[in-house]
């Protein structure tokens, strides 16, 4: 266990906050050993999934996907197409469930809501709070969140202020997340740590703790705009933080690795890791998501291979 250092600049805010739960997060977090973490993470890729287990895993992975498009050139048309694909990823005969959500920029929430309607099984997630850098004033970040929720977003994927975190201003980061959670209202909050910029596993663990304490419903690895994005060891560190938080508080926080997961094989390794770290209760789209765009196509190709016995050409599958 180590004591979290606070800089002088954060002290006033830190001392201004009374809740006991807050003290717990800031007092101590476990240290993380890099070598054994990476070794453990690699061990999950050695599980060999065949036949029915493979097919079930592939379908489960589809149901956990946040089908994502986060580009400047996104159009309402592309979003509509993404929504359609999320609702029914492939012909009904393959029995593939819908994706968990579509993930878009705030300006595209309205078209997505128009397309999906109010009772869609597919949720609308929107990145907000000055995605991807988070380098914006808090006031505009909160306004962005409120408007996005008003436009119909079910879930808000916020980015943390990495500058504040890395400068040791953990209280500031906590406050921003808590304020964003308040601005979310009924919408679920996913907190993106951007682990590629936090660099060390100790940082990832601490940031996860703060995000969960401050009210995040999910913790998420990456924006997808920074490399490295999601990795197995980083996700493992976050899953272990979720597990310890569960034992301490009784609250099940969700996990979303995002960015860099492109193949069905990778996705199955993540599911194995969730199953063997947090158990069966987390094997649900309510508590585990994968942020991806091209992954779904590979999952579908593998599902069709399981059903038909051979691979189909890529042009039989709709674009990501």
């Amino acid at each position, binding site marked *: *266990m*180590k004591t979290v250092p606070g800089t002088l*600049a954060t002290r*006033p*805010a830190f001392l*201004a*906050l*009374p*809740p006991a*739960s*807050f003290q717990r997060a800031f007092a101590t977090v*476990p*240290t*993380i*050993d890099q*070598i*054994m*973490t990476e*070794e*453990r993470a690699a061990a999950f890729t*050695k*599980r*060999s*999934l*065949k*036949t*029915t*287990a493979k097919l*079930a*895993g592939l379908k489960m992975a589809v149901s956990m996907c946040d089908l994502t498009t986060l580009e400047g050139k996104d159009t309402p048309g592309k979003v509509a197409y993404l929504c359609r694909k999320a609702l029914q990823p492939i012909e009904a005969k393959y029995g593939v469930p819908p994706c968990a959500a579509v993930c878009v920029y705030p300006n595209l929430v309205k078209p997505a809501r128009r397309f999906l309607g109010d009772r869609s099984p597919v949720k609308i997630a929107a990145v907000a709070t000055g995605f991807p850098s988070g380098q914006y004033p*808090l006031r505009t970040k909160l306004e962005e969140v409120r408007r996005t929720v008003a436009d119909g977003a079910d879930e808000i994927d916020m980015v943390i202020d990495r500058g504040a975190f890395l400068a040791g201003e953990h*209280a*500031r980061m*906590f*406050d*921003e997340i*808590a*304020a964003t*959670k*308040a601005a979310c209202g009924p919408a*679920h909050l996913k907190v993106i740590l951007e682990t590629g910029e936090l660099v060390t596993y100790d940082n990832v663990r601490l940031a996860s703790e703060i995000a969960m304490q*401050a*009210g995040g*419903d999910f913790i998420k690895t990456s924006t997808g705009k920074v490399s490295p994005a999601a990795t197995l060891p980083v996700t493992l560190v976050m899953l272990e933080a979720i*597990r310890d938080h*569960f*034992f301490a*508080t*009784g*609250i*099940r*926080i969700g996990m979303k690795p995002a960015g860099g997961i492109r193949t069905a094989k990778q996705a199955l390794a993540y*599911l194995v890791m969730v*199953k*063997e770290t*947090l*158990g*069966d*209760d987390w*094997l649900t789209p309510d508590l585990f998501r994968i942020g991806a765009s091209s992954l779904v196509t590979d999952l579908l190709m593998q599902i069709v291979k399981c059903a038909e016995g051979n691979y189909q050409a890529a042009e039989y599958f709709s674009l990501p």
Partner: protein
Amino acid sequence: MKAKSQVAKISAKAAVVPKISHPIIPLKDRRLNFGAKWDYTPSLEDAKPYPIAPRHELFINGKFIAPAARNYFPSINPATEQPLTEIAEANADDVDRAVKAARRAYDRVWGKMPARERGKYLYRIARIIQEKARELAVLETVDGGKPIKESRDVDLPLVAAHFFYYAGWADKLKYAFPGKTPHPLGVAGQIIPWNFPLLMAAWKIAPALACGNTVVLKPAETTSITALRLATIFQEAGLPDGVVNIVTGAGATGAAIVNHPDINKIAFTGSTEVGKHIAKAVAGSGKKLTLELGGKAANIIFEDASLDQAIEGIIAGIYFNQGHVCCAGSRLLVQEGIYPQVIEKLRDRIQTLRVGNPLDKNTDIGAINSAAQLAKIRELVQSGLDEGAALQQTQCALPAKGYWYPPTFLTGVTHAHRVAQEEIFGPVLSVMTFRTPEEALERANNTPYGLSAGIWTDKGSKIFKMAAKLQAGVIWANCYNKFDPTSPFGGYKESGFGREGGLQGLAAYSRLD
């Protein structure tokens, strides 16, 4: 200043904010559920391409020959109890033939061969092992019961690595010991155990050959198949006849090797009990001796350790290869303050270990090597329970046939318990606590053994301080059961003497002038 005051304002608001939108699971229901949702279907490694001959002969002077007395004993698959083959039983006459062949090869070929030529043979053997790695891994798993995941990813890569490593030394021996010149010893008699059959053969044969010795090797009676398969690799590599001879059999065969007058060196890996007999038998004979015997390693977890990673180290330390590891971390010493967390995490973690068919690629814990070993494990665990320890085991179902023991740990153990003193050689961990580093040290060293130890702490200085005082040949810090041919391995006290692996491993097979 302005910016700061804004933060303070938001903070005040935030203090009431974290709204709970989740159901809170009551304390008594807060457990992880490692159930059958999305269970993995069996994924079996195919053993069919690698049939096992119904009978295995002795490998003497480059040829497979029948034993003089025509006696054979069965070798079974411990996961199914089905016979795999029958193995020749070598008597004293057979051992004598093997030693004569080794002596002839030493005098006429191997001892005189330029070192770089010896190296070429070793490189060739290493490469053939790599080519046949899958077959050897399957045979190792079928014969010994260890999971294919381990024989494929640990044993076989290390076997090849040992031959490669010592192949590299063969023509550089004169630089290994500055100021001294190494000479080969002659004929080495080597007796190896059943827990890592092929790896132990590699540990013994590779340095012996690199240094210019010839070999008579006896594998353990329950695991002879891969050593004999290795013999065919020696044939394929064109290794001169008699350089390596493999005689199979049980204790009597081993005794014939130990007592043979024309052997210059005995290397034994196995139990301390047998090791003591060998030491007595060899005393005064002029034979050089190295012994790698039992262990009861302390795996010490300090409060400042990276806990989840330490748990992985505990698992790797005791459940690797069903605990059939002489350096297994079988005594867990946990600092008081983290004891409850360690127990809870360990309890959860062992639930995810999969016990079953060793050929299933998803199996973590395979079969116990023999009925005798299973009986020994059961007897020792029962003694622990009789002496007041509490049992923690996985709930997994075990196959009906074969020898199985689920991953187990015992709490409420004191240092006076038998399970804290005797080597169990199975997947059974004895958990104890300590308060200060001094106490941990005292307890860790309070054993007749001294093979290995583990230290888990975030503090580098503590690692060095502990390592300097622990009486153990191998000490792992923030990891466990890591092996590499460049690193010497061996024990203190009743865990034996002499080192295998690394530069030091050469000294065991050389006379230094």
